[in-house]
Protein backbone atom coordinates (compact mmCIF):
# COMPACT_ATOMS: atom_id res chain seq x y z
CA UNK A 1 0.00 0.00 0.00
CA UNK A 2 1.44 3.35 -1.01
CA UNK A 3 0.81 6.57 0.84
CA UNK A 4 -1.78 8.87 -0.72
CA UNK A 5 -2.08 12.63 -0.52
CA UNK A 6 -5.08 12.15 1.78
CA UNK A 7 -2.93 10.06 4.13
CA UNK A 8 -0.37 12.84 4.27
CA UNK A 9 -3.09 15.40 5.06
CA UNK A 10 -4.37 13.19 7.88
CA UNK A 11 -0.90 12.88 9.36
CA UNK A 12 -0.42 16.65 9.13
CA UNK A 13 -3.68 17.27 10.99
CA UNK A 14 -2.31 15.18 13.85
CA UNK A 15 1.11 16.85 13.67
CA UNK A 16 -0.37 20.33 13.71
CA UNK A 17 -1.70 19.64 17.20
CA UNK A 18 1.76 18.70 18.46
CA UNK A 19 4.87 20.77 19.17
CA UNK A 20 6.95 18.64 16.80
CA UNK A 21 8.62 20.17 13.76
CA UNK A 22 9.55 17.01 11.93
CA UNK A 23 8.22 13.54 11.33
CA UNK A 24 10.09 10.75 9.63
CA UNK A 25 8.26 7.64 8.64
CA UNK A 26 9.76 4.55 7.12
CA UNK A 27 8.13 1.34 5.96
CA UNK A 28 9.25 -1.44 3.70
CA UNK A 29 7.96 0.45 0.67
CA UNK A 30 8.52 4.15 1.35
CA UNK A 31 10.15 6.86 3.40
CA UNK A 32 8.38 10.10 4.21
CA UNK A 33 9.75 13.21 5.89
CA UNK A 34 7.43 16.03 6.91
CA UNK A 35 8.97 19.26 8.14
CA UNK A 36 7.57 22.56 9.36
CA UNK A 37 8.77 25.24 6.94
CA UNK A 38 10.36 28.40 8.41
CA UNK A 39 7.67 30.60 6.85
CA UNK A 40 4.80 28.39 8.05
CA UNK A 41 3.19 25.35 6.48
CA UNK A 42 4.78 21.96 5.87
CA UNK A 43 7.08 20.37 3.35
CA UNK A 44 7.16 16.75 2.31
CA UNK A 45 9.89 14.58 0.92
CA UNK A 46 8.94 11.09 -0.05
CA UNK A 47 10.84 8.19 -1.45
CA UNK A 48 9.42 4.96 -2.82
CA UNK A 49 12.04 2.45 -1.78
CA UNK A 50 10.59 -0.74 -3.23
CA UNK A 51 12.34 -2.24 -6.25
CA UNK A 52 10.54 -2.26 -9.58
CA UNK A 53 9.07 -5.64 -10.41
CA UNK A 54 10.24 -5.82 -14.02
CA UNK A 55 8.98 -8.66 -16.18
CA UNK A 56 11.06 -10.01 -19.01
CA UNK A 57 10.08 -8.22 -22.20
CA UNK A 58 7.54 -10.03 -24.35
CA UNK A 59 9.28 -11.65 -27.29
CA UNK A 60 11.79 -8.84 -27.44
CA UNK A 61 15.34 -9.42 -28.60
CA UNK A 62 16.65 -6.78 -26.24
CA UNK A 63 15.32 -8.33 -23.04
CA UNK A 64 18.72 -9.29 -21.67
CA UNK A 65 20.20 -5.84 -22.02
CA UNK A 66 17.47 -3.72 -20.50
CA UNK A 67 18.86 -3.43 -16.97
CA UNK A 68 22.34 -2.40 -17.99
CA UNK A 69 21.08 0.09 -20.54
CA UNK A 70 19.10 1.91 -17.90
CA UNK A 71 22.06 2.21 -15.62
CA UNK A 72 24.27 3.49 -18.36
CA UNK A 73 21.72 6.14 -19.22
CA UNK A 74 21.42 7.30 -15.64
CA UNK A 75 25.15 7.40 -15.10
CA UNK A 76 26.00 9.25 -18.24
CA UNK A 77 23.32 11.79 -17.50
CA UNK A 78 25.02 12.78 -14.27
CA UNK A 79 28.47 12.75 -15.81
CA UNK A 80 27.58 15.62 -18.08
CA UNK A 81 27.16 17.89 -15.07
CA UNK A 82 30.79 19.03 -15.06
CA UNK A 83 32.36 18.65 -18.46
CA UNK A 84 36.07 19.47 -18.52
CA UNK A 85 37.34 22.07 -20.94
CA UNK A 86 37.50 20.11 -24.18
CA UNK A 87 40.39 20.26 -26.58
CA UNK A 88 39.12 21.93 -29.71
CA UNK A 89 41.84 20.98 -32.13
CA UNK A 90 43.43 17.70 -33.21
CA UNK A 91 45.51 17.09 -36.32
CA UNK A 92 44.65 20.62 -37.29
CA UNK A 93 40.92 19.74 -37.31
CA UNK A 94 38.34 21.73 -35.34
CA UNK A 95 35.80 19.83 -33.31
CA UNK A 96 32.08 20.62 -33.45
CA UNK A 97 30.50 19.62 -30.14
CA UNK A 98 26.95 18.89 -29.03
CA UNK A 99 25.53 21.96 -27.27
CA UNK A 100 23.53 19.71 -24.92
CA UNK A 101 22.82 16.04 -24.50
CA UNK A 102 20.18 14.46 -26.69
CA UNK A 103 19.57 12.59 -29.91
CA UNK A 104 21.65 13.71 -32.89
CA UNK A 105 20.00 14.01 -36.29
CA UNK A 106 21.83 14.64 -39.54
CA UNK A 107 18.75 15.81 -41.47
CA UNK A 108 15.98 18.31 -40.71
CA UNK A 109 13.29 15.61 -41.10
CA UNK A 110 13.17 11.87 -41.55
CA UNK A 111 13.82 11.13 -45.20
CA UNK A 112 15.23 14.58 -45.97
CA UNK A 113 18.74 15.16 -47.27
CA UNK A 114 21.40 15.53 -44.54
CA UNK A 115 22.47 19.06 -43.62
CA UNK A 116 26.07 18.27 -44.59
CA UNK A 117 28.25 15.43 -45.91
CA UNK A 118 31.99 14.87 -45.60
CA UNK A 119 33.52 17.44 -47.90
CA UNK A 120 30.69 19.98 -47.50
CA UNK A 121 31.81 23.57 -47.21
CA UNK A 122 30.59 25.28 -44.02
CA UNK A 123 30.97 28.57 -42.27
CA UNK A 124 30.42 29.60 -38.66
CA UNK A 125 26.64 29.86 -39.05
CA UNK A 126 26.06 26.69 -41.06
CA UNK A 127 23.66 24.27 -39.37
CA UNK A 128 25.32 20.85 -39.51
CA UNK A 129 22.83 18.85 -37.44
CA UNK A 130 20.11 18.85 -34.81
CA UNK A 131 20.16 17.69 -31.20
CA UNK A 132 16.73 16.72 -29.91
CA UNK A 133 16.42 17.17 -26.16
CA UNK A 134 13.09 16.87 -24.36
CA UNK A 135 11.15 17.18 -27.62
CA UNK A 136 12.92 20.42 -28.52
CA UNK A 137 15.09 20.66 -31.62
CA UNK A 138 18.37 22.50 -31.13
CA UNK A 139 20.50 23.44 -34.12
CA UNK A 140 24.17 22.47 -34.11
CA UNK A 141 26.29 25.13 -35.81
CA UNK A 142 29.63 24.44 -37.45
CA UNK A 143 31.25 27.32 -35.57
CA UNK A 144 34.16 27.38 -38.01
CA UNK A 145 34.70 28.13 -41.66
CA UNK A 146 36.03 25.18 -43.64
CA UNK A 147 35.20 21.74 -44.91
CA UNK A 148 33.60 18.83 -43.09
CA UNK A 149 36.42 16.31 -42.59
CA UNK A 150 34.65 13.73 -40.46
CA UNK A 151 31.13 13.04 -39.15
CA UNK A 152 31.54 11.29 -35.81
CA UNK A 153 27.95 10.33 -34.94
CA UNK A 154 25.41 8.32 -36.87
CA UNK A 155 21.94 9.67 -37.52
CA UNK A 156 19.64 9.21 -34.49
CA UNK A 157 22.60 8.38 -32.25
CA UNK A 158 22.58 9.59 -28.65
CA UNK A 159 25.03 12.40 -27.94
CA UNK A 160 26.39 13.44 -24.58
CA UNK A 161 26.73 17.12 -23.89
CA UNK A 162 29.98 18.30 -25.53
CA UNK A 163 30.32 15.07 -27.49
CA UNK A 164 32.27 15.54 -30.70
CA UNK A 165 29.76 15.60 -33.50
CA UNK A 166 32.01 16.45 -36.45
CA UNK A 167 35.50 17.60 -37.29
CA UNK A 168 36.07 20.52 -39.60
CA UNK A 169 39.16 21.23 -41.62
CA UNK A 170 39.56 24.95 -41.15
CA UNK A 171 39.97 27.18 -44.11
CA UNK A 172 41.49 30.61 -44.13
CA UNK A 173 39.93 32.42 -46.99
CA UNK A 174 42.11 34.85 -48.89
CA UNK A 175 40.75 38.36 -48.53
Amino acid at each position, binding site marked *: *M*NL*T*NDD*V*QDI*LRLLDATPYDELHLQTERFRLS*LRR*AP*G*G*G*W*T*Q*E*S*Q*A*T*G*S*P*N*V*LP*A*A*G*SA*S*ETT*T*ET*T*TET*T*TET*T*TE*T*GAPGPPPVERDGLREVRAP*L*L*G*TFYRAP*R*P*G*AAPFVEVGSRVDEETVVGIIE*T*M*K*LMNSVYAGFRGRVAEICLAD*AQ*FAEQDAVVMRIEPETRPA
Partner: protein
Amino acid sequence: MRPVLRRVLIANRGEIAVRILRTCERLGIEAVLAASEADLDSLPARLADRTICIGPASSSASYLDVEAVVGAALAVEADAIHPGYGFLSENPRLARACDEAGVVFVGPTEAQLAAAGDKLRARDHAVAAGLPVMPGGEVRGVTEARELAEDIGFPVLVKAVGGGGGRGLKPVHDPHGLTEAVERAMAEARAAFGDPRVYLERLVRSGRHVEVQLLGDGETVIQLGDRDCSVQRRYQKLVEEAPAPDLGDRLRAEMHRAAVAFGERLGYRGIGTVEFLVDLDRDTFHFLEMNARVQVEHPVTEEVVGLDLVAEQIAIAEGRPVTLAQSDVRTNGHAIECRINAEDWRRGFRPSPGTVTEAVFPAGPGIRVDTHVQAGSAVPPFYDSLVAKLIVCGRDRGDAVARLADALDRCRVDGITTNLPLHRALCADPEFAGGGADIALLDRFLEGVGAARG
Protein backbone atom coordinates in the same frame (compact mmCIF):
# COMPACT_ATOMS: atom_id res chain seq x y z
CA MET B 1 -21.62 -5.36 -21.70
CA ARG B 2 -17.95 -4.98 -21.00
CA PRO B 3 -16.22 -6.85 -18.22
CA VAL B 4 -15.09 -5.27 -14.99
CA LEU B 5 -11.44 -4.34 -15.38
CA ARG B 6 -9.13 -6.29 -13.12
CA ARG B 7 -5.76 -5.58 -14.70
CA VAL B 8 -4.85 -2.41 -16.61
CA LEU B 9 -1.73 -1.77 -18.66
CA ILE B 10 -0.58 1.83 -18.31
CA ALA B 11 1.06 2.75 -21.60
CA ASN B 12 2.69 5.96 -20.48
CA ARG B 13 5.34 7.41 -18.22
CA GLY B 14 5.98 10.35 -15.93
CA GLU B 15 3.50 11.97 -13.62
CA ILE B 16 0.43 10.74 -15.50
CA ALA B 17 1.57 7.13 -15.07
CA VAL B 18 1.75 7.73 -11.31
CA ARG B 19 -1.63 9.47 -11.42
CA ILE B 20 -3.31 6.51 -13.15
CA LEU B 21 -1.56 4.04 -10.84
CA ARG B 22 -2.99 5.75 -7.80
CA THR B 23 -6.55 5.47 -9.03
CA CYS B 24 -6.01 1.82 -10.01
CA GLU B 25 -4.70 1.09 -6.53
CA ARG B 26 -7.67 2.84 -4.91
CA LEU B 27 -10.10 0.90 -7.09
CA GLY B 28 -8.35 -2.41 -6.44
CA ILE B 29 -7.26 -2.79 -10.06
CA GLU B 30 -3.89 -4.36 -10.72
CA ALA B 31 -1.67 -1.91 -12.60
CA VAL B 32 1.05 -3.06 -14.97
CA LEU B 33 3.33 -0.35 -16.32
CA ALA B 34 4.56 -0.45 -19.91
CA ALA B 35 7.92 1.33 -19.75
CA SER B 36 10.83 2.03 -22.04
CA GLU B 37 14.34 0.95 -21.07
CA ALA B 38 15.01 4.49 -19.81
CA ASP B 39 12.11 4.27 -17.34
CA LEU B 40 12.53 0.81 -15.80
CA ASP B 41 13.82 2.32 -12.58
CA SER B 42 11.39 5.25 -12.47
CA LEU B 43 8.94 6.07 -9.67
CA PRO B 44 5.95 4.69 -11.62
CA ALA B 45 7.92 1.45 -12.12
CA ARG B 46 8.47 1.26 -8.35
CA LEU B 47 4.80 1.91 -7.61
CA ALA B 48 3.32 -0.41 -10.25
CA ASP B 49 2.42 -3.96 -9.37
CA ARG B 50 4.55 -5.04 -12.31
CA THR B 51 6.49 -3.36 -15.10
CA ILE B 52 7.03 -4.65 -18.62
CA CYS B 53 9.64 -3.24 -20.97
CA ILE B 54 8.24 -2.20 -24.34
CA GLY B 55 11.43 -1.11 -26.06
CA PRO B 56 14.39 1.24 -26.06
CA ALA B 57 14.44 4.80 -24.75
CA SER B 58 13.47 6.43 -28.03
CA SER B 59 9.69 6.92 -27.85
CA SER B 60 9.17 5.98 -31.50
CA ALA B 61 10.44 2.50 -30.62
CA SER B 62 8.54 2.19 -27.32
CA TYR B 63 5.73 4.50 -26.18
CA LEU B 64 4.73 5.26 -29.77
CA ASP B 65 4.91 1.65 -30.98
CA VAL B 66 1.34 0.31 -31.24
CA GLU B 67 2.46 -3.30 -31.66
CA ALA B 68 4.81 -3.15 -28.67
CA VAL B 69 2.08 -1.68 -26.47
CA VAL B 70 -0.65 -4.13 -27.51
CA GLY B 71 1.87 -7.00 -27.38
CA ALA B 72 2.68 -6.07 -23.79
CA ALA B 73 -1.02 -5.97 -22.88
CA LEU B 74 -1.49 -9.46 -24.31
CA ALA B 75 1.69 -10.76 -22.65
CA VAL B 76 0.53 -9.68 -19.19
CA GLU B 77 -3.11 -10.56 -19.96
CA ALA B 78 -4.31 -7.05 -19.22
CA ASP B 79 -8.04 -6.38 -19.61
CA ALA B 80 -7.43 -2.83 -20.73
CA ILE B 81 -4.87 -0.24 -21.85
CA HIS B 82 -4.86 3.25 -20.36
CA PRO B 83 -2.91 5.48 -22.75
CA GLY B 84 -2.62 8.59 -20.53
CA TYR B 85 -1.97 11.77 -22.56
CA GLY B 86 0.44 12.38 -25.44
CA PHE B 87 2.14 9.39 -27.09
CA LEU B 88 -0.59 7.06 -28.49
CA SER B 89 -3.47 8.44 -26.43
CA GLU B 90 -5.31 9.94 -29.41
CA ASN B 91 -4.08 7.55 -32.07
CA PRO B 92 -7.00 5.72 -33.73
CA ARG B 93 -4.62 2.88 -34.65
CA LEU B 94 -4.16 1.97 -30.98
CA ALA B 95 -7.92 1.99 -30.41
CA ARG B 96 -8.39 -0.29 -33.43
CA ALA B 97 -5.53 -2.60 -32.44
CA CYS B 98 -7.07 -2.90 -28.96
CA ASP B 99 -10.45 -3.81 -30.46
CA GLU B 100 -8.84 -6.44 -32.67
CA ALA B 101 -6.88 -7.90 -29.76
CA GLY B 102 -9.91 -7.96 -27.47
CA VAL B 103 -8.39 -5.45 -25.05
CA VAL B 104 -10.45 -2.52 -23.75
CA PHE B 105 -9.08 0.87 -24.81
CA VAL B 106 -9.64 3.37 -22.01
CA GLY B 107 -10.77 6.22 -24.20
CA PRO B 108 -13.20 7.12 -26.97
CA THR B 109 -13.96 5.03 -30.04
CA GLU B 110 -11.62 4.82 -33.01
CA ALA B 111 -14.07 6.90 -35.07
CA GLN B 112 -14.26 9.59 -32.38
CA LEU B 113 -10.46 9.78 -32.17
CA ALA B 114 -10.30 10.13 -35.95
CA ALA B 115 -12.96 12.86 -35.94
CA ALA B 116 -11.28 14.86 -33.18
CA GLY B 117 -7.75 14.34 -34.51
CA ASP B 118 -8.43 15.54 -38.06
CA LYS B 119 -8.79 19.25 -37.44
CA LEU B 120 -10.85 19.89 -40.56
CA ARG B 121 -13.30 17.14 -39.71
CA ALA B 122 -13.50 18.40 -36.15
CA ARG B 123 -14.21 21.86 -37.56
CA ASP B 124 -16.98 20.45 -39.78
CA HIS B 125 -18.52 18.68 -36.79
CA ALA B 126 -18.33 21.91 -34.82
CA VAL B 127 -20.19 23.78 -37.57
CA ALA B 128 -22.79 21.01 -37.79
CA ALA B 129 -23.29 21.15 -34.01
CA GLY B 130 -23.89 24.90 -34.23
CA LEU B 131 -20.60 26.00 -32.70
CA PRO B 132 -18.95 29.23 -33.80
CA VAL B 133 -15.68 28.50 -35.63
CA MET B 134 -12.91 30.89 -36.56
CA PRO B 135 -13.33 32.26 -40.10
CA GLY B 136 -11.23 30.07 -42.40
CA GLY B 137 -11.09 26.74 -44.16
CA GLU B 138 -8.98 24.25 -46.09
CA VAL B 139 -6.67 25.50 -48.82
CA ARG B 140 -5.27 23.19 -51.52
CA GLY B 141 -2.67 25.60 -52.81
CA VAL B 142 -1.31 29.11 -52.81
CA THR B 143 -4.04 30.61 -55.03
CA GLU B 144 -6.80 29.35 -52.79
CA ALA B 145 -4.87 30.50 -49.76
CA ARG B 146 -4.55 34.01 -51.16
CA GLU B 147 -8.27 34.27 -51.91
CA LEU B 148 -9.28 32.95 -48.52
CA ALA B 149 -6.79 35.16 -46.67
CA GLU B 150 -8.21 38.23 -48.45
CA ASP B 151 -11.67 37.18 -47.28
CA ILE B 152 -10.85 36.64 -43.64
CA GLY B 153 -8.18 39.35 -43.38
CA PHE B 154 -4.63 39.29 -42.01
CA PRO B 155 -3.11 38.14 -39.74
CA VAL B 156 -3.93 34.48 -40.42
CA LEU B 157 -2.73 31.21 -38.99
CA VAL B 158 -1.69 28.40 -41.36
CA LYS B 159 -2.47 25.12 -39.60
CA ALA B 160 -1.63 21.52 -40.42
CA VAL B 161 -4.76 19.34 -40.46
CA GLY B 162 -2.82 16.58 -38.72
CA GLY B 163 -1.06 18.87 -36.24
CA GLY B 164 -1.80 19.36 -32.58
CA GLY B 165 -0.35 20.30 -29.23
CA GLY B 166 0.95 23.55 -30.68
CA ARG B 167 2.76 21.88 -33.56
CA GLY B 168 2.16 22.67 -37.22
CA LEU B 169 1.10 26.31 -36.74
CA LYS B 170 2.44 29.25 -38.77
CA PRO B 171 1.32 32.83 -38.19
CA VAL B 172 1.32 35.04 -41.30
CA HIS B 173 0.98 38.78 -40.82
CA ASP B 174 0.76 40.11 -44.38
CA PRO B 175 0.14 38.91 -47.96
CA HIS B 176 3.88 38.87 -48.79
CA GLY B 177 4.65 36.04 -46.38
CA LEU B 178 1.68 33.90 -47.39
CA THR B 179 3.04 32.01 -50.41
CA GLU B 180 6.15 30.81 -48.66
CA ALA B 181 4.31 29.99 -45.43
CA VAL B 182 1.68 27.86 -47.22
CA GLU B 183 4.25 26.02 -49.32
CA ARG B 184 6.47 25.33 -46.35
CA ALA B 185 3.52 24.36 -44.15
CA MET B 186 2.35 21.81 -46.73
CA ALA B 187 5.84 20.32 -47.12
CA GLU B 188 6.39 20.19 -43.36
CA ALA B 189 2.95 18.79 -42.66
CA ARG B 190 3.59 15.98 -45.11
CA ALA B 191 6.93 15.19 -43.47
CA ALA B 192 5.84 15.59 -39.86
CA PHE B 193 2.28 14.26 -39.88
CA GLY B 194 2.15 12.26 -43.12
CA ASP B 195 -0.72 14.50 -44.21
CA PRO B 196 0.04 17.56 -46.40
CA ARG B 197 -3.39 19.20 -45.89
CA VAL B 198 -3.38 22.66 -44.36
CA TYR B 199 -6.05 25.21 -43.55
CA LEU B 200 -6.20 28.89 -42.75
CA GLU B 201 -7.87 30.57 -39.82
CA ARG B 202 -8.05 34.12 -38.58
CA LEU B 203 -5.29 34.73 -36.05
CA VAL B 204 -6.67 36.24 -32.87
CA ARG B 205 -3.91 38.02 -31.01
CA SER B 206 -5.80 38.96 -27.93
CA GLY B 207 -7.92 36.20 -26.55
CA ARG B 208 -8.27 33.77 -23.72
CA HIS B 209 -7.91 30.02 -23.92
CA VAL B 210 -10.89 28.52 -22.12
CA GLU B 211 -11.84 24.85 -22.30
CA VAL B 212 -14.75 22.75 -21.11
CA GLN B 213 -14.39 19.28 -19.59
CA LEU B 214 -16.78 16.67 -20.94
CA LEU B 215 -17.82 13.27 -19.65
CA GLY B 216 -19.85 10.99 -21.89
CA ASP B 217 -20.93 7.36 -22.07
CA GLY B 218 -21.76 7.25 -25.78
CA GLU B 219 -25.29 8.55 -25.22
CA THR B 220 -25.36 11.01 -22.39
CA VAL B 221 -22.82 13.84 -22.36
CA ILE B 222 -22.38 16.22 -19.42
CA GLN B 223 -19.89 19.01 -18.75
CA LEU B 224 -17.75 19.27 -15.64
CA GLY B 225 -17.10 22.98 -15.83
CA ASP B 226 -14.40 25.03 -17.47
CA ARG B 227 -10.69 25.77 -17.17
CA ASP B 228 -8.62 28.76 -18.22
CA CYS B 229 -5.25 27.93 -19.79
CA SER B 230 -4.30 31.34 -21.14
CA VAL B 231 -0.87 31.39 -19.50
CA GLN B 232 1.07 29.79 -22.32
CA ARG B 233 4.18 30.22 -24.41
CA ARG B 234 4.36 29.06 -28.00
CA TYR B 235 1.06 27.24 -27.49
CA GLN B 236 2.49 25.30 -24.52
CA LYS B 237 0.42 25.75 -21.36
CA LEU B 238 2.22 26.72 -18.17
CA VAL B 239 -0.49 27.58 -15.62
CA GLU B 240 -4.10 26.41 -15.66
CA GLU B 241 -7.02 27.13 -13.39
CA ALA B 242 -10.63 26.23 -12.76
CA PRO B 243 -13.07 27.79 -13.04
CA ALA B 244 -12.07 30.33 -15.70
CA PRO B 245 -12.02 33.68 -13.88
CA ASP B 246 -14.16 36.68 -14.86
CA LEU B 247 -16.15 35.03 -17.57
CA GLY B 248 -19.63 36.49 -17.86
CA ASP B 249 -22.45 34.12 -16.85
CA ARG B 250 -23.95 34.24 -20.34
CA LEU B 251 -20.65 33.49 -22.11
CA ARG B 252 -19.82 30.69 -19.68
CA ALA B 253 -23.22 29.06 -20.09
CA GLU B 254 -23.00 29.32 -23.89
CA MET B 255 -19.59 27.68 -23.91
CA HIS B 256 -20.79 24.85 -21.68
CA ARG B 257 -23.78 24.31 -23.98
CA ALA B 258 -21.55 24.43 -27.09
CA ALA B 259 -19.13 21.86 -25.68
CA VAL B 260 -21.94 19.48 -24.77
CA ALA B 261 -23.50 19.93 -28.24
CA PHE B 262 -20.15 18.98 -29.80
CA GLY B 263 -19.84 15.91 -27.56
CA GLU B 264 -23.42 14.89 -28.37
CA ARG B 265 -22.77 15.29 -32.09
CA LEU B 266 -19.94 12.71 -31.78
CA GLY B 267 -21.88 10.51 -29.34
CA TYR B 268 -18.77 10.94 -27.23
CA ARG B 269 -17.62 8.19 -24.88
CA GLY B 270 -15.07 8.92 -22.16
CA ILE B 271 -13.57 12.14 -20.92
CA GLY B 272 -12.56 14.85 -23.35
CA THR B 273 -12.05 18.56 -23.60
CA VAL B 274 -13.43 21.11 -26.02
CA GLU B 275 -11.08 24.07 -26.39
CA PHE B 276 -12.27 27.57 -27.21
CA LEU B 277 -10.63 30.88 -27.91
CA VAL B 278 -12.51 33.71 -26.22
CA ASP B 279 -12.40 36.90 -28.24
CA LEU B 280 -12.12 39.62 -25.59
CA ASP B 281 -12.94 42.50 -27.93
CA ARG B 282 -16.10 40.96 -29.31
CA ASP B 283 -17.14 39.11 -26.12
CA THR B 284 -17.61 35.91 -28.14
CA PHE B 285 -15.84 32.59 -28.51
CA HIS B 286 -14.72 30.21 -31.24
CA PHE B 287 -14.15 26.47 -31.33
CA LEU B 288 -10.44 25.55 -31.46
CA GLU B 289 -10.25 21.76 -31.16
CA MET B 290 -11.21 18.77 -29.10
CA ASN B 291 -8.75 16.76 -27.03
CA ALA B 292 -10.02 13.20 -26.79
CA ARG B 293 -8.07 12.09 -23.70
CA VAL B 294 -7.29 12.98 -20.11
CA GLN B 295 -5.47 16.31 -20.08
CA VAL B 296 -2.40 17.44 -18.18
CA GLU B 297 -4.51 20.05 -16.42
CA HIS B 298 -7.35 17.71 -15.36
CA PRO B 299 -6.51 18.03 -11.62
CA VAL B 300 -7.85 21.60 -11.36
CA THR B 301 -11.25 20.31 -12.46
CA GLU B 302 -11.00 17.38 -10.04
CA GLU B 303 -10.27 19.74 -7.15
CA VAL B 304 -13.24 22.04 -7.77
CA VAL B 305 -15.87 19.45 -8.73
CA GLY B 306 -14.65 16.74 -6.34
CA LEU B 307 -14.37 13.91 -8.87
CA ASP B 308 -11.63 11.47 -9.84
CA LEU B 309 -11.58 11.82 -13.64
CA VAL B 310 -9.40 8.75 -14.16
CA ALA B 311 -11.91 6.71 -12.18
CA GLU B 312 -14.68 8.15 -14.37
CA GLN B 313 -12.71 7.11 -17.46
CA ILE B 314 -12.36 3.59 -16.14
CA ALA B 315 -16.06 3.37 -15.27
CA ILE B 316 -16.99 4.41 -18.81
CA ALA B 317 -14.47 1.91 -20.23
CA GLU B 318 -16.22 -0.78 -18.19
CA GLY B 319 -19.38 0.10 -20.07
CA ARG B 320 -21.11 1.84 -17.19
CA PRO B 321 -23.36 4.82 -17.89
CA VAL B 322 -22.76 8.33 -16.59
CA THR B 323 -24.64 8.31 -13.30
CA LEU B 324 -24.00 11.94 -12.48
CA ALA B 325 -26.77 14.34 -13.50
CA GLN B 326 -25.75 17.71 -14.91
CA SER B 327 -27.51 19.42 -12.01
CA ASP B 328 -25.32 17.44 -9.57
CA VAL B 329 -22.15 19.01 -10.95
CA ARG B 330 -21.19 21.87 -8.66
CA THR B 331 -18.03 23.91 -8.61
CA ASN B 332 -16.57 24.62 -5.21
CA GLY B 333 -13.64 27.01 -4.71
CA HIS B 334 -10.85 27.79 -7.14
CA ALA B 335 -7.88 25.63 -8.17
CA ILE B 336 -4.63 26.59 -9.92
CA GLU B 337 -2.00 24.28 -11.39
CA CYS B 338 1.63 25.14 -12.18
CA ARG B 339 3.59 22.93 -14.55
CA ILE B 340 7.06 22.55 -13.09
CA ASN B 341 9.33 21.82 -16.05
CA ALA B 342 13.00 20.91 -16.31
CA GLU B 343 13.97 24.01 -18.25
CA ASP B 344 16.00 27.14 -17.70
CA TRP B 345 13.67 30.05 -18.38
CA ARG B 346 16.54 32.52 -18.08
CA ARG B 347 18.40 30.82 -20.93
CA GLY B 348 15.76 30.64 -23.63
CA PHE B 349 13.87 27.85 -21.83
CA ARG B 350 16.79 25.52 -22.50
CA PRO B 351 15.90 21.95 -21.46
CA SER B 352 17.65 20.62 -18.37
CA PRO B 353 17.67 16.83 -18.18
CA GLY B 354 19.73 15.17 -15.45
CA THR B 355 19.31 13.51 -12.08
CA VAL B 356 17.20 14.97 -9.30
CA THR B 357 19.25 15.11 -6.11
CA GLU B 358 16.52 16.47 -3.86
CA ALA B 359 12.79 16.99 -4.32
CA VAL B 360 10.98 18.89 -1.57
CA PHE B 361 7.34 19.75 -2.10
CA PRO B 362 4.78 21.58 0.00
CA ALA B 363 2.14 19.62 1.91
CA GLY B 364 -1.04 20.58 3.66
CA PRO B 365 -4.72 21.36 3.15
CA GLY B 366 -5.57 22.47 -0.37
CA ILE B 367 -2.22 21.32 -1.76
CA ARG B 368 -1.65 18.48 -4.17
CA VAL B 369 1.53 17.54 -6.02
CA ASP B 370 1.38 15.16 -8.97
CA THR B 371 4.91 14.05 -9.76
CA HIS B 372 7.11 11.15 -10.77
CA VAL B 373 10.33 12.53 -9.33
CA GLN B 374 11.97 11.92 -5.99
CA ALA B 375 15.61 12.18 -4.90
CA GLY B 376 17.64 10.05 -7.33
CA SER B 377 15.13 10.15 -10.19
CA ALA B 378 16.50 10.43 -13.69
CA VAL B 379 14.95 13.08 -15.91
CA PRO B 380 15.88 11.62 -19.30
CA PRO B 381 16.44 13.78 -22.38
CA PHE B 382 14.13 11.59 -24.49
CA TYR B 383 10.78 12.83 -23.23
CA ASP B 384 9.04 16.07 -22.35
CA SER B 385 10.26 18.32 -19.56
CA LEU B 386 7.33 18.10 -17.12
CA VAL B 387 8.60 16.97 -13.71
CA ALA B 388 5.75 17.92 -11.38
CA LYS B 389 2.41 19.67 -11.19
CA LEU B 390 1.67 21.77 -8.15
CA ILE B 391 -2.07 22.14 -7.64
CA VAL B 392 -3.52 24.42 -4.98
CA CYS B 393 -7.12 24.98 -4.09
CA GLY B 394 -8.61 27.96 -2.24
CA ARG B 395 -12.02 29.39 -1.31
CA ASP B 396 -11.82 31.79 -4.23
CA ARG B 397 -9.20 32.89 -6.73
CA GLY B 398 -7.56 35.41 -4.41
CA ASP B 399 -7.20 32.77 -1.70
CA ALA B 400 -5.84 30.26 -4.24
CA VAL B 401 -3.21 32.72 -5.53
CA ALA B 402 -2.09 33.51 -1.96
CA ARG B 403 -1.81 29.79 -1.16
CA LEU B 404 0.03 29.21 -4.42
CA ALA B 405 2.65 31.82 -3.50
CA ASP B 406 3.21 30.13 -0.12
CA ALA B 407 3.29 26.67 -1.65
CA LEU B 408 5.78 27.69 -4.37
CA ASP B 409 8.12 29.03 -1.67
CA ARG B 410 8.21 25.56 -0.14
CA CYS B 411 9.14 23.78 -3.41
CA ARG B 412 12.72 22.80 -4.08
CA VAL B 413 13.94 20.54 -6.86
CA ASP B 414 17.74 20.23 -7.01
CA GLY B 415 20.05 18.55 -9.50
CA ILE B 416 18.23 19.91 -12.53
CA THR B 417 17.19 23.43 -13.43
CA THR B 418 13.45 24.00 -13.20
CA ASN B 419 11.12 26.86 -14.02
CA LEU B 420 10.12 27.27 -10.34
CA PRO B 421 11.62 30.80 -10.23
CA LEU B 422 9.42 31.74 -13.20
CA HIS B 423 6.31 30.47 -11.41
CA ARG B 424 7.19 32.48 -8.28
CA ALA B 425 7.74 35.63 -10.32
CA LEU B 426 4.57 35.10 -12.32
CA CYS B 427 2.53 34.48 -9.18
CA ALA B 428 3.63 37.91 -7.90
CA ASP B 429 2.76 39.62 -11.20
CA PRO B 430 -0.18 42.01 -10.75
CA GLU B 431 -1.70 41.11 -14.11
CA PHE B 432 -1.69 37.39 -13.29
CA ALA B 433 -2.93 38.05 -9.77
CA GLY B 434 -5.76 40.15 -11.22
CA GLY B 435 -7.11 37.16 -13.15
CA GLY B 436 -8.64 36.76 -16.59
CA ALA B 437 -5.47 37.64 -18.50
CA ASP B 438 -5.15 36.81 -22.20
CA ILE B 439 -2.84 34.45 -24.08
CA ALA B 440 -0.27 37.21 -24.62
CA LEU B 441 0.25 37.68 -20.86
CA LEU B 442 3.28 35.41 -20.59
CA ASP B 443 5.09 37.01 -23.54
CA ARG B 444 4.45 40.46 -22.08
CA PHE B 445 5.66 39.26 -18.70
CA LEU B 446 8.84 37.72 -20.11
CA GLU B 447 9.55 40.86 -22.08
CA GLY B 448 8.98 42.95 -18.96
CA VAL B 449 11.48 41.00 -16.87
CA GLY B 450 13.94 40.83 -19.77
CA ALA B 451 14.05 37.04 -19.84
CA ALA B 452 15.64 35.41 -22.85
CA ARG B 453 12.77 34.30 -25.01
CA GLY B 454 14.81 31.80 -26.96
